[in-house]
């Protein structure tokens, strides 16, 4: 179905970013605009999702030029559900940022850049053209460069330096892959590439190109051995910014990997082995890194790396059950990781520090907040019936079907180490007596805020906790959706036929 509704999320975010730029110093209006705008974004995404569910794959062609010539935008169930999840965490971060971002520290430009970032993310979900995907990726990294240096302390600049350099190299490698693919097939439309690739005789060159894509996107996704930039930079910016980075940026890379490797680089045995090995090593190395961290945000950063392994493992196993598990994990992970970094911001507001050694006493001082924090943490660990449990179950089931025992071992190990690190977090932050509460200078602790300001901190965490709970209670609906997505990914003929009906 040809439908221009696909473009609406992108246009909405663009308009928001531009409008908010005019409210340069009126920070109150920026906050309201951002929250209302992202609520509208959520609404549009849900409408798009329902429409895609009812009518199948939607597409639109730029300038009404037919498929291989015009630039195609496509929304299948995968894209549409990613948009809904993005909108959910986007809205939560909007609320959180409205409360936690001080006026002194860069509130002026935060919201406009933030909406440019969301525009890039929504764009990459509906891109049907490879070069278009590249441009959306560039838009994301330009906006994220702006956000990660915002405020500009010394440590932050050092984190930003690593982030910027590695992302630039990743873009260059991704573009190299695109150049190879254009040389091989003479087209950039993803559906058209999928048609042309089986006709190419030089299979070795296709494998090389596939691995070039895997490296380029892999750096952005932070898989082994290209993840070192992530824990070195994600703990430096403001909590609201870490939240959106930790929740969404690496996952856009995962989405692109899924799209590319299911549509035209169908994994042969060599690529599948590489991907599976990388997934297992990502799980193990990320878990080992998380075990020894002493800073809350660094600990969570390493957990991001570790959990990327679950999704890549699904791609490596490449059966419909495993893919369904991986996609379920992707949805769950975006929500939970966004929430984790917001929790780290809340913990900082409560106690004035990020260091595990100095933290403590949350349970005795703030029992209600402790209960709130428990939901996302338990979801992350995957205690049944919470949301982390089901995707892992599907992944292990998928691994058993093809008898990939090594990757199952890595998945189980990754889950256990996550449990251990979260137990450590619980012990240090919640149960331990606080070893003395001296706040830094000019720091307004949580207890001195009025209730609206408190709501800015707790409401977004509660929203995302509810979404996590919904993944647990409404698991049947979610499993139906991810099964449908996995089926679509395993059988891309439908996608190709919709975009190129004549050929």
């Amino acid at each position, binding site marked *: 179905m040809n439908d221009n509704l696909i473009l609406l999320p992108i246009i909405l975010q663009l308009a928001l970013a531009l409008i908010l730029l005019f409210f340069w110093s009126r920070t109150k209006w920026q906050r309201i605009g951002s929250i209302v705008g992202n609520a509208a974004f959520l609404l549009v995404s849900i409408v798009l999702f329902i429409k895609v569910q009812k009518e199948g794959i939607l597409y639109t062609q730029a300038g009404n030029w037919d498929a291989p010539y015009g630039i195609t935008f496509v929304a299948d169930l995968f894209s549409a559900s990613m948009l809904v999840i993005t909108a959910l965490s986007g809205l939560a971060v909007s609320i959180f940022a409205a409360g936690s971002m001080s006026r002194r520290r860069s509130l002026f430009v935060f919201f406009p850049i933030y909406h440019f970032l969301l525009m890039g993310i929504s764009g990459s979900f509906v891109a049907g053209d490879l070069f278009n995907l590249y441009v959306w990726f560039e838009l994301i990294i*330009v906006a994220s460069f702006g956000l990660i240096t915002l405020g500009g302390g010394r440590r932050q*600049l*050092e984190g930003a*330096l690593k982030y*910027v350099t590695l992302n*630039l190299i990743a873009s*260059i490698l991704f573009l190299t892959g695109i*150049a190879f693919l254009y040389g091989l097939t003479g087209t*950039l439309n993803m559906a058209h590439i999928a048609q042309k690739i089986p006709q190419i005789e030089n299979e070795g060159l296709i494998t090389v190109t596939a691995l070039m894509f895997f490296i380029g996107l892999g750096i952005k996704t932070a898989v082994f051995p290209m993840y070192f930039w992530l824990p070195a930079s994600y703990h430096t910016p403001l909590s609201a910014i870490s939240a959106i980075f930790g929740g969404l940026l690496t996952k856009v890379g995962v989405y692109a990997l899924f799209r590319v490797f299911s549509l035209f680089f169908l994994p042969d045995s060599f690529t599948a082995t590489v991907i599976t090995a990388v997934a297992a090593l990502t799980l193990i190395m990320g878990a080992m890194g998380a075990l020894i961290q002493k800073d809350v945000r660094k600990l969570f950063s390493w957990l991001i790396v570790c959990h990327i392994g679950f999704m890549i493992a699904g791609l490596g196993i490449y059966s419909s059950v495993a893919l369904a598990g991986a996609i379920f994990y992707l949805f769950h992970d975006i929500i939970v990781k966004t929430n984790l970094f917001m929790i780290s911001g809340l913990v900082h507001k409560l106690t004035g520090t990020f260091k595990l050694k100095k933290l403590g006493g949350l349970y005795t001082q703030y029992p209600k907040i402790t209960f709130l924090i428990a939901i996302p943490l338990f979801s992350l660990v995957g205690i049944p019936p919470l949301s982390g449990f089901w995707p892992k179950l599907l992944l292990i089931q998928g691994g058993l079907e093809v008898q990939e025992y090594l990757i199952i071992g890595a998945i189980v190990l990754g889950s256990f180490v996550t449990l251990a690190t979260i137990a450590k977090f619980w012990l240090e932050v919640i149960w331990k007596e606080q070893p003395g509460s001296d706040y830094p200078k000019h720091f307004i602790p949580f207890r001195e805020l009025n209730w609206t300001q408190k709501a800015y901190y707790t409401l977004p965490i509660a929203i995302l906790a509810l979404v996590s709970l919904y993944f647990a209670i409404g698991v049947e609906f979610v499993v139906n959706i991810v099964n449908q997505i996995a089926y679509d990914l395993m059988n891309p003929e439908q996608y190709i036929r919709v975009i190129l009906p004549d050929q």
Partner: protein
Amino acid sequence: MEVILAIIVGFMYAAGIYLILRRSLVKLIIGLIILGNGVNLLLFLLGGITKGHPPVIGESETFLAGVYADPLPQALILTAIVISFGLQAFAMVLLQQEYVQGGVEDLDSIKEEEEEK
């Protein structure tokens, strides 16, 4: 022509990666610029080099006749140049700030400071 371009592209990738691996911040950014230009040249090369007409349909014709140059790689390169220009400008300002605020010129010293904390 293709062979010469291929060698140049290979040389630019090698030079760019070599410069990135050096420890100096200035060489890092120069390396990134060279790599970025290398990839543009690669796009140009793999788009197919033809000595042909520009892809414009004349007033009296209805389709493209004869040998014509593929316009797509040129559009791609143009986009890529603009994007990489913006990113490199940002990276330069970042490195300059790094130098002004921290007096850091050597990448190794950044790593050591992180370990102290």
